[in-house]
C-alpha cells in the first residue's frame, strides 16, 4: 500500500460510514413517525372539522369529518354480484330468473317491473325510475325508507315527526318527493367561526343522519314506522329471545312504551338500524304505513295480524286482488329482519352489522365497513372473525344453503302455479267464488309464504331451517288448494 492511497481509502470509508448512518437514521426516524401516527390514530378516531346537525341530510357534509366511513359508504354505488343477487349493470328483471313471478303478481304493479337489487347508493334513483312508480300511482309513504326523510317529517308536522309522517305518507309519491327536495339539507359553511349552515335543495338516499346522532355519533333509529312496529312487538306476547331488551321491558312496569333508542343495547341497535327498512310492512294507500308485528315476527304471526286487520272502510286486509284467481292476496316486502330473527345468528347475538358491515382495520383504528353489501363478497372479515375456517369452506356452506333453498322455492312456486291452473280450470267449468272459497283461502296462504321467501334477500341464509319450514307449508297449502279447486270443479 502506498502512503498516498491510505488517506484516500480512509476518506472513502468515512463517506461510506456517513451513508450507512444516514440510511439508518432515515429508517429509524421513519419508524418513529409511523409509531407516532399510529398512536395519534388510536387517540383521535375522528376530527370534527365541520358541524353537522339533525337537518344535514347530505352525506358529503358528514364525510368531511368521517372520511373513512364516507369513502366506504360511497362504494355502495359499485355493482356487485353474488350467486343469487345483484348484477353488473342495470339489474335484470327478476322474472327472467323466476318466470312464475309474473303469474304470482298478476294484476299488481310488481308484474310490470321488478328488478334485482342494487347498492344503497341507488335506492332513491331506482325508486324514482321504476315503472311501478312512473306508471302507477304510489303513496308518499314509500319515501320513508328510500330517502333521508326525517327533516321533512319534522317540517310538515311542525316539529312532530309522527304527524309529518302521516301527512307526507298520505300525499302522492310525486308531491311527497317534491316536499323532500324542498326541505333539502342544512350544510355547514366551511371556514365560518361559529357553526353556520346553508340550506341546499335536494333529496338524498338514506344517509348518515338516519342512523347516527350528529352530536355523539351513537346509533339511533328514526323511522316512525319502525318505532311503532317495535313498540307493537314489545307490547305483544310473542317471545323474542334474541332481543333481550324487549324481554326486559316486558318484565318491567310497562308504564312508558318500549323505546329502542333508550332500552335497546348497542348490539341490538346494530340490527335495529337496518330493521328500520329491511322488513315486512304495509305501505298504503288505504291506511298509514305500518309494520305488522303485533302478534310476532314469524310468517304465520304476521299473517294472523293481517287476517284480523280491517281497513278504515271495514274491508279485510289485502294488498291486491289476484288477476287470475280473484283472491285477495298479500304482498311480502323484504322481510330480512323477520327472517334473521328466526336464525341461529340472531339467537347467538350476531347483529346485521357484524356480517354486512364487519369491522376492519385502518392503521390503529377499528372501523365498521360502511360499504354495506353481501357478506359473501367479504368472507374474511364477515365470517372468519367467528368461524376460523378456509374461505372456500365457508363459501361452500353458503352455496349449499342457498341452492337448497333455491330448489325448494322453485318447487313451491310450481305448486302455487298448479293451484292457479286448477282454479282457472274450475272457473271455466262454471265453479263460482263461493264454491271455490276454500281453494282461494289456501291460495292466499300459499302465495304469502312463497313470496315471503322469494322477496327476502338472502335465499334462505338468514334462517335456513325456518325458510325451509315456510316453503314446506307453502307447498302443502298450495297442493291442498289444488285438491279443493278440483273438488269444486266436480260439483
Amino acid at each position, binding site marked *: 500500500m502506498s502512503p498516498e492511497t491510505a*488517506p484516500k481509502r*480512509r476518506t472513502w470509508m*468515512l463517506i461510506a*460510514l*456517513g451513508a450507512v*448512518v444516514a440510511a*439508518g*437514521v432515515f429508517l*429509524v*426516524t421513519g*419508524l*418513529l413517525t*409511523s*409509531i*407516532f401516527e*399510529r398512536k395519534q390514530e*388510536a387517540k383521535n378516531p375522528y376530527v370534527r372539522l365541520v358541524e353537522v346537525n339533525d337537518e344535514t341530510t347530505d352525506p358529503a357534509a358528514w364525510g368531511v369529518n368521517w372520511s373513512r366511513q364516507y369513502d366506504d359508504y360511497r362504494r355502495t354505488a359499485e355493482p356487485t354480484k353474488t350467486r343469487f343477487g345483484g348484477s353488473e349493470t342495470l339489474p335484470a328483471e327478476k322474472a327472467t330468473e323466476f318466470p312464475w313471478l309474473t303469474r304470482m303478481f298478476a294484476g299488481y304493479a310488481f308484474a310490470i317491473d321488478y328488478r334485482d337489487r342494487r347498492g344503497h347508493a341507488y335506492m332513491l334513483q331506482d325508486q324514482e325510475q321504476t315503472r311501478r312508480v312512473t306508471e302507477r300511482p304510489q303513496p308518499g309513504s314509500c319515501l320513508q325508507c328510500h330517502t333521508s326523510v326525517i327533516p321533512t317529517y319534522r317540517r310538515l308536522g311542525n316539529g312532530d315527526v309522527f304527524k309529518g309522517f302521516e301527512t307526507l305518507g298520505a300525499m302522492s309519491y310525486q308531491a311527497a318527493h317534491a316536499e323532500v327536495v324542498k326541505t333539502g339539507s342544512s350544510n355547514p359553511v366551511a371556514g365560518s367561526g361559529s357553526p353556520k349552515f346553508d340550506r341546499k335543495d335536494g333529496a338524498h338516499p338514506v344517509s348518515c343522519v338516519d342512523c347516527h346522532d350528529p352530536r355523539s355519533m351513537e346509533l339511533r333509529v328514526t323511522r316512525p314506522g319502525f318505532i311503532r312496529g317495535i313498540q307493537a312487538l314489545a307490547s305483544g306476547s310473542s317471545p323474542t329471545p334474541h332481543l333481550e331488551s324487549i324481554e326486559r321491558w316486558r318484565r318491567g312496569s310497562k308504564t312508558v312504551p318500549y323505546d329502542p333508542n333508550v332500552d335497546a343495547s348497542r*348490539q341490538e341497535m346494530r340490527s335495529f338500524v337496518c330493521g328500520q327498512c329491511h322488513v315486512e310492512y304495509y305501505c298504503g294507500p288505504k291506511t298509514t304505513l305500518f309494520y305488522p308485528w303485533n302478534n310476532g315476527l314469524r310468517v304465520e304471526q304476521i299473517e294472523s295480524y293481517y287476517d284480523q286487520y280491517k281497513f278504515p272502510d271495514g274491508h279485510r286486509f289485502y294488498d291486491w286482488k289476484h288477476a287470475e284467481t280473484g283472491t285477495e292476496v298479500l304482498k311480502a316486502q323484504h322481510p330480512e329482519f323477520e327472517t334473521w330473527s328466526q336464525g341461529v345468528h340472531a339467537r347467538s347475538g350476531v347483529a346485521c352489522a*357484524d356480517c354486512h358491515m364487519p369491522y*376492519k*382495520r385502518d*392503521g*390503529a*383504528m*377499528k372501523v365498521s365497513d360502511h360499504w354495506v353489501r353481501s357478506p359473501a363478497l367479504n368472507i*374474511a*372479515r364477515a365470517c*372468519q*372473525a*367467528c368461524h*376460523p375456517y378456509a374461505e372456500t369452506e365457508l363459501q361452500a356452506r353458503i352455496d349449499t344453503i342457498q341452492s337448497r333453498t333455491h330448489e325448494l322455492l322453485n318447487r313451491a312456486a310450481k305448486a302455487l302455479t298448479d293451484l292457479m291452473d286448477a282454479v282457472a280450470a274450475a272457473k271455466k267449468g262454471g265453479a263460482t267464488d263461493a264454491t271455490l272459497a276454500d281453494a282461494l283461502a289456501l291460495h292466499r296462504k300459499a302465495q304469502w309464504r312463497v313470496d315471503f321467501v322469494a322477496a327476502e334477500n338472502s335465499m334462505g341464509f338468514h334462517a335456513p331451517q325456518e325458510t325451509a319450514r315456510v316453503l314446506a307449508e307453502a307447498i302443502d297449502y298450495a297442493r291442498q288448494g289444488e285438491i279443493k279447486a278440483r273438488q269444486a270443479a266436480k260439483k
Partner: protein
Amino acid sequence: MTRVRSALPLVVVILIGTLAGVGAYTFKYGEGLSYFSTDPRACKNCHVMNDQYASWSRGPHHAAARCIDCHLPHEFIPKYIAKADNGYRHSKGFTFMDFHDPIMIKPSNARTLQANCVRCHADFVHDIVRGSTTREDAVLCVHCHRGAGHGARR
C-alpha cells in the same frame, strides 16, 4: 491532512451517536422494554390486539393465565426465539399493514398453544390425548374449547 485524521474519530462518534440516540428514543417511544415484561397490556400496545385483550379479560382463563402463558413456549431459548419471530412479523405487518384480517394463528403458534394447554391440564386429559397432540391432523383442544382463552368476542 493530520487535522482531518485527528477529527476522524470525533466524526465517527457523532455519526454513530446520532443513530444510537434516535434509535434509543424510538425504542423508548415504541415502548420496546414492555416486550420484555409479562404484562398482557404490552400485547395491545399497537391496538391491533384490542379485541383479543378484551375477550381474554372477559374469558374464563383471565384469572389463571396471561397471554404469554398460552402463546409462548416456557423454556428460555425457545421462548426468545418465538418472541423474536412473532415480534418481527407483527412489527412488519403493522408497519406495512399487509397482514390477513381477521388475524389468525400460525401453525407453529398453534402447536405452542396446544403444548401449553396440555402443560397445565395433562392430569385431566391424559386419557383423552393419545399419541401426538401437535401433529398436522391431531385434534387441538381449542377446536372445541374455543372460548376457553377468549370469551365474548366483542
